[in-house]
């Protein structure tokens, strides 16, 4: 057996990426395109499954990730949102930037196809157990690749100049390199979702994503419906485990049962669960020879829990950083810190501000949420969730002392 046989892997790569989700495959595509020898290690036997995702993706993220519209995975265009405060007096939001509800199973495969065409290797059904650590010339620990358990149950070593940890919410590989990727339970929402068919929503509302808020129905989170067709949608929930009295599934089931107008004749075609890391991103998602991207580094929008876009954006920055480091033959933490610097500037600081908005929103009672809906219009909601002008809101809330007090506490 030689390295040249089609199914054999090299012993050494420029970049090894752990995890073949959207972040991992975009990193692989970019690295391979830059001429780097790239390997993706994926523990699942098939990319894209199981799905643990609401499957909403803004068009802006597609541009950032350099992805074009593809009817194979862009299931349905969304043109805005309908938000229901606890009293269900809904607010329609029509932002300029639209998006798609995607078919994640197909999406992940297509991304891998793109990366494969550029020359990246994929090793499936293989678990990355830990990083290879060696001492570098400065006497520090340097990551030099990964030790894996392959689909034959064999333990093998694959060496690389750089490792990118893109192994998602249950990330372990970065921990073996000394980066704490764990989530405190208060920052991890429990997610549960059904894909359902034969739904009965007014037709003119099925191009909007629907968001239902309230401590009664989903403490510390929200319920969503993202449409894939007129009568097909992902209907899901996120709840904060420290606030919830029941399981996420129980909250969702009860809520669905209370809304026969939408769900009376519905059938469930898929069940999905997952953890949504909503805490602050990891401050320094890198070490000697390793970078961490996506959910593994908590790069998630803390308001809506979306993480695909953030992961793909970080993947591109990590690939750029890897190319530079390899050119300079410098894989030190100092060199790789450029990745973190760029990411914080581009996205991280905004996510930190959005975290403030989340803390503010979570502090509101159901009554105050109803009130909030009367005070701010759709532009206000958009500005608030983007955290684009937080100071402005301190003024807007002046007429409602309780909300203003909470805003003063959280939005500063």
């Amino acid at each position, binding site marked *: 057996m030689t390295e040249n046989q089609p199914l054999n892997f090299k012993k050494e790569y420029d970049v090894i990426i752990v995890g073949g989700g959207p972040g991992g495959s975009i990193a692989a595509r970019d690295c391979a395109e830059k001429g780097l020898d790239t390997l993706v290690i994926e523990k699942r036997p098939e990319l894209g499954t199981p799905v643990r995702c609401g499957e909403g993706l803004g068009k802006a993220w597609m541009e950032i990730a350099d992805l074009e519209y593809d009817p194979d995975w862009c299931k349905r265009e969304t043109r805005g949102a309908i938000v229901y405060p606890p009293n269900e007096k809904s607010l329609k939001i029509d932002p300029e930037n639209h998006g798609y509800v995607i078919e994640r199973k197909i999406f992940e495969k297509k991304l891998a196809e793109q990366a494969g065409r550029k020359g990246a290797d994929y090793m499936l059904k293989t678990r990355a157990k830990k990083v290879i650590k060696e001492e570098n010339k400065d006497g520090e620990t340097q990551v030099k690749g990964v030790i894996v358990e392959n689909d034959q149950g064999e333990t093998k070593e694959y060496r690389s100049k750089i490792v990118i940890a893109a192994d998602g*919410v249950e990330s372990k590989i970065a921990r073996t390199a000394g980066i704490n990727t764990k989530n405190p339970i208060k920052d991890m929402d429990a997610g549960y979702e059904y894909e359902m068919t034969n739904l009965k929503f007014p037709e003119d509302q099925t191009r909007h994503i629907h968001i239902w808020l309230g401590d009664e129905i989903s403490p510390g989170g929200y319920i969503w419906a993202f449409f894939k067709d007129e009568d097909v949608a992902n209907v899901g929930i996120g709840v904060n485990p420290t606030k919830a009295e029941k399981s996420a599934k129980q909250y969702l089931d009860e809520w669905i049962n209370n809304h026969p107008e939408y769900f009376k004749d519905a059938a469930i075609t898929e069940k*999905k669960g997952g953890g949504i890391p909503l805490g602050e991103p990891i401050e320094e998602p890198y070490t000697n020879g390793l970078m961490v991207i996506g959910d593994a580094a908590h790069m998630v929008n803390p308001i809506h829990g979306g993480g695909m876009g953030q992961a793909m954006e970080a993947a591109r920055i990590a690939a750029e950083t890897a190319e530079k480091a390899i050119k300079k033959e410098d894989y030190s933490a100092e060199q790789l810190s450029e990745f973190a610097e760029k990411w914080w500037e581009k996205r991280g600081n905004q996510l930190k501000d959005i975290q403030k908005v989340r803390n503010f929103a979570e502090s509101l009672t159901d009554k105050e949420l109803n009130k909030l809906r009367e005070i701010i219009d759709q532009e206000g909601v958009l500005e608030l969730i983007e955290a684009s002008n937080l100071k402005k809101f301190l003024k807007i809330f002046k007429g409602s002392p309780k909300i203003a007090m909470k805003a003063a506490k959280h939005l500063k």
Partner: protein
Amino acid sequence: MALEIDREKCMACGGCVSLCPADALELKNKELTIDHEKCVECGNCVKFCPVKALEIKKDQQKGEQND
């Protein structure tokens, strides 16, 4: 006391894995595994589980049905 998984309910979503302070949980071949030697029975995973598939059972309840 021991942490137990209800395999019928567990969706192997992995959310609990990153909450485990003791590294006792892992997803292997689409199945959640518990390392009882490591488990400190803190209850994080129990509280989190979206489908209540995890439970810390008292020893005397072991083997009993419908508890």
